[in-house]
C-alpha cells in the first residue's frame, strides 16, 4: 500500500494514497517504522510557503533529516523557489542573483554534509514576460493546464480561429493532433487526451485562456533546447533529459547519488561547471512542469506518458478518480526511478522537494516529503511512503 501523512502543523492524518481514504494506523497493515519516521521528519518542521525564501532551507533541512533518519542510497531533491518567485514577483537583478546564490548555497550544504555524488539539473531559464496570447475569444475552446503553460490545447476551432491564430502575436505555431501524432508517435491515453490542436507560445509569451493563472506575471520560462547538468559520475553519458535515469540506475548500486532538480535555473544562472543536456524533442521544449519531471524520472519522452499538454484535465476528475491527492494523475507512476531502484535493484531512496506532488510522483522514492501547495497557497506538508508497496 502507498500511503501519505498529511501534516498541518500540530495536526496530521494518514491516508491511503490510491483511494484517499483515511487510514486507521493502529489497525491497518503498514510498516509502522516507516510511518513513524515520516511523522518524525515532518513533525514540527512545516513548509514555510512558496513565497518564503526559507523554503529553500526547508528543502535542504528536510533532505538532511531524511538522510539522517533513513540513510538512503539515492536521494531526489527538487527546489521550486527560483522558478516560482521569478514568475510572480517583480524582482530586481540583485534580488534574483541573491535568490540564485541562496539556491546553490543550499545545494552545496546538502552535498557537503552528506557526501552524496550530485547530479544537478537546471530545468531552464526564466526570462522577462513579453506579453500574453489571448485565446479566450476564439470560437473553440483554448485551455491551459496549470502544470504546462507554454502549450495550450485548442478544441473545436473554427476556420476563423485558425486564421486568427496565424496572425496572433505571441503564437509560435499551431499543430493539429494528426500532425503531432504523426511526428511524435504518441499512442494510447496520451493520444486519446490530446487536444484537436496544440498552440505553442512564442518564447517570452504566455497564454490567457480557460485555466490560465490570475497572478500577475513577471517572468516566464525560456524556450531552452538545452539545459545545464552537472553530474559527478565518471561514466555519465547524459545527452538528453531522458538519459538521467539510466545514468543513475547504472551507478546506484555502488554509489550514493543525489539527483537535484532546480526550477527556474538555466545556463544563465547555473553556478559552477556543467555540461549541456538536450531539453527538447523535435520542436517541443520541456517547460519545467510534469513533462520535465516525469521525463527525467521515467527516462521516456513526454509523448510516451499519459498526460499531454493542453489536455482538458478536469474532465477526468470524476468522483471515483483514484489518487485524489495527486492532482491530475490518474494512477500511480509505476515506471518512476524510485520504483525501479526499489523493486528491481533493491536500492533505498528518499525525496524532499518544494514542487508539491511532482516530488513524490517523479521520485517514487521509498519515502518522499513535499509541500502541499496549490496556486501558491500553503496547505500543509505531505510525506508519501512507497516502501510498503509490493
Amino acid at each position, binding site marked *: 500500500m502507498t500511503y501519505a501523512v498529511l501534516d*498541518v502543523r500540530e495536526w496530521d492524518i494518514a491516508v491511503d494514497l490510491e483511494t484517499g481514504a483515511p487510514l486507521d494506523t493502529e489497525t491497518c497493515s503498514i510498516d509502522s517504522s516507516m510511518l513513524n519516521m515520516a511523522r518524525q521528519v515532518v513533525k514540527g518542521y512545516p513548509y514555510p510557503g512558496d513565497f518564503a525564501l526559507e523554503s529553500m532551507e526547508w528543502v535542504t533541512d528536510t533532505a538532511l533529516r531524511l538522510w539522517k533518519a533513513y540513510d538512503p542510497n539515492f536521494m531526489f531533491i527538487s527546489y521550486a523557489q527560483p522558478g516560482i518567485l521569478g514568475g510572480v514577483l517583480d524582482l530586481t537583478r540583485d534580488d534574483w542573483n541573491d535568490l540564485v546564490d541562496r539556491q546553490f548555497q543550499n545545494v552545496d550544504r546538502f552535498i557537503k554534509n552528506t557526501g552524496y555524488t550530485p547530479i544537478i539539473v537546471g530545468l531552464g531559464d526564466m526570462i522577462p514576460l513579453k506579453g500574453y496570447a489571448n485565446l479566450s475569444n476564439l470560437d473553440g475552446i483554448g485551455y491551459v493546464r496549470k502544470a504546462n503553460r507554454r502549450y495550450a490545447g485548442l478544441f473545436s476551432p473554427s476556420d476563423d480561429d485558425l486564421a486568427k491564430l496565424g496572425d496572433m502575436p505571441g503564437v509560435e505555431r499551431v499543430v493539429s493532433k494528426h500532425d503531432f501524432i504523426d511526428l511524435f508517435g504518441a499512442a494510447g491515453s496520451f493520444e486519446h487526451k490530446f487536444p484537436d490542436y496544440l498552440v505553442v507560445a512564442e518564447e517570452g509569451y504566455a497564454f490567457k485562456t480557460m485555466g490560465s493563472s490570475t497572478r500577475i506575471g513577471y517572468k516566464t520560462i525560456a524556450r531552452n533546447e538545452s539545459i545545464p547538468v552537472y553530474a559527478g559520475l565518471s561514466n555519465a553519458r547524459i545527452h538528453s533529459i531522458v538519459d538521467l535515469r539510466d545514468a543513475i540506475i547504472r551507478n546506484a548500486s555502488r554509489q550514493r547519488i543525489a539527483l537535484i532538480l532546480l526550477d527556474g535555473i538555466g545556463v544563465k544562472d547555473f553556478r559552477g561547471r556543467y555540461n549541456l543536456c538536450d531539453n527538447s524533442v523535435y520542436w517541443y521544449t520541456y517547460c519545467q512542469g510534469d513533462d520535465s519531471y516525469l521525463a527525467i524520472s521515467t527516462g521516456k519522452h513526454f509523448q510516451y506518458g499519459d498526460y499531454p499538454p493542453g489536455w*482538458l484535465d478536469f474532465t*477526468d*476528475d470524476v*468522483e471515483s478518480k483514484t489518487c485524489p491527492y495527486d492532482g491530475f494523475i490518474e494512477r500511480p507512476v509505476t515506471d518512476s526511478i524510485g520504483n525501479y531502484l526499489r523493486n528491481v535493484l533493491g536500492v533505498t531512496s528518499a525525496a524532499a522537494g518544494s514542487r508539491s506532488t511532482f516530488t513524490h510522483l517523479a521520485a517514487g522514492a521509498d519515502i518522499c516529503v513535499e509541500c502541499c*501547495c496549490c496556486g501558491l*497557497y500553503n496547505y500543509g506538508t505531505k510525506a508519501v511512503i512507497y516502501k510498503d508497496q509490493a
Partner: protein
Amino acid sequence: MICNYCEWRCELGDGQAGVCQMYIQKGNRIEERHPHHYTTYVATHIESLPFFHAYPGSRSLQVGSRGCNFDCHYCSNAYVAKSLPGEVYTFRLEPKRLVDVAKQTGCHNIVFAVNEPVVFLPSLIEVAKEAQAAGLPVGCMTNGYMTEETADILSETCEFINISLKGFSQEFYRKYTGISDFSPVLRNIRKLANRVHVEITTPIIQDINDHEIIDIAEFIASVDKNTPWHVFRLLPEYKMQDREYPSIQVINKKLEEARRILPYIYFSNFVGSTWVSTHCPACGKKIIERFNLGGCGGKMVKYLLDEGNSCPDCRNHVHIHGNYTQWNSGDVDNDLCSLGC
C-alpha cells in the same frame, strides 16, 4: 452622484471612482469602468468554491474579475481583488461567449467567485440573463456588504449565494476589513436567505475572531438552522502574512460547541480535513463524502442521499438546492464529448 451598489454609497464626481475603483460617474450616470472584463475562468467542482448543499457534484465555470469594496487584511486574492486597473491582465468576454464556454466545457452552472461580484454587478446581470436563457443556474460568492436594492437585484440574478460573514463585531470588521458597520451584512444574509439558497463562510483567525464562533453560529441558526457554514482556517496572507497559522485543534474544539447549534458546519482550508463531509443530523450517517486537497471546501467523492434528498438509513430529509449532478453529465451532446474527453 451617489454610487448605490454597495453600502459605502460613495459620492462620486464626474470621472471619479469610489472605494472599489470599479464604477465611475460619467455625466449623470454611474457606469462600470471595465464591463465584461475578467481575470479568470476555470472549470471546477462546485464544492471547491465552496457550495456543499447546491447542485452537489456539478461542474461550475468559476469566473473572476478584479476589485473589491473591502480591504481584508488576510485576503488570499489581494493580487486580484486589491489590484488597480491596469495592474492585472484582464480580457473581455461577452456574456454570450461566457455562457457558450460553460456549455462547451460541460459546466452545469456559472459561479462568480475570486473577487466581490457587486463591483461588477451590471456585467454579472447580463451574464446571468444569458445563462438563465440557456438553462444554466448562476451563483456567486459575496462579502454581503451591498445595499438593499443591490441585494434585491442579486436575489433575482443568482440562485445560490455564499456570503462571507467575517466576524461578529464592529471592532473586527472595522480593524480587519475596513468597514465601520457590519449590520448591512447581517441584514443582507437574512434577506437573501429568504429568497435564494445561501451558504455562509467565515475565515477564522486564532485569537482575533475565534471567540465570535458561537455568536456567528447563533446568528446563522436564527436565520435558518439548516444553513451550511464553512469555517476556513486562515492562511496568513497579504497584510497578515507574518501571523501564525491557526491551530486546527484549538479552532475545532471551539467548533464542537457550535456543532450543537448548527448541523452543517464544515472546517477546511488545509489538506486532509476530515470535517468536510455531510452527516445526517438525525442519525449521524455520513451521507455526502468529500475530501480536502487543501483550499476552500473540498471535492465530493460519494453522494448517498436518495432522489428526494433523504438519508438512506433514517429517511431524514436533508436540504439540498438543485439536484445531484454527475461531473461529466454536461459533456453529453457537446463538442468535448465527441473528442472523447
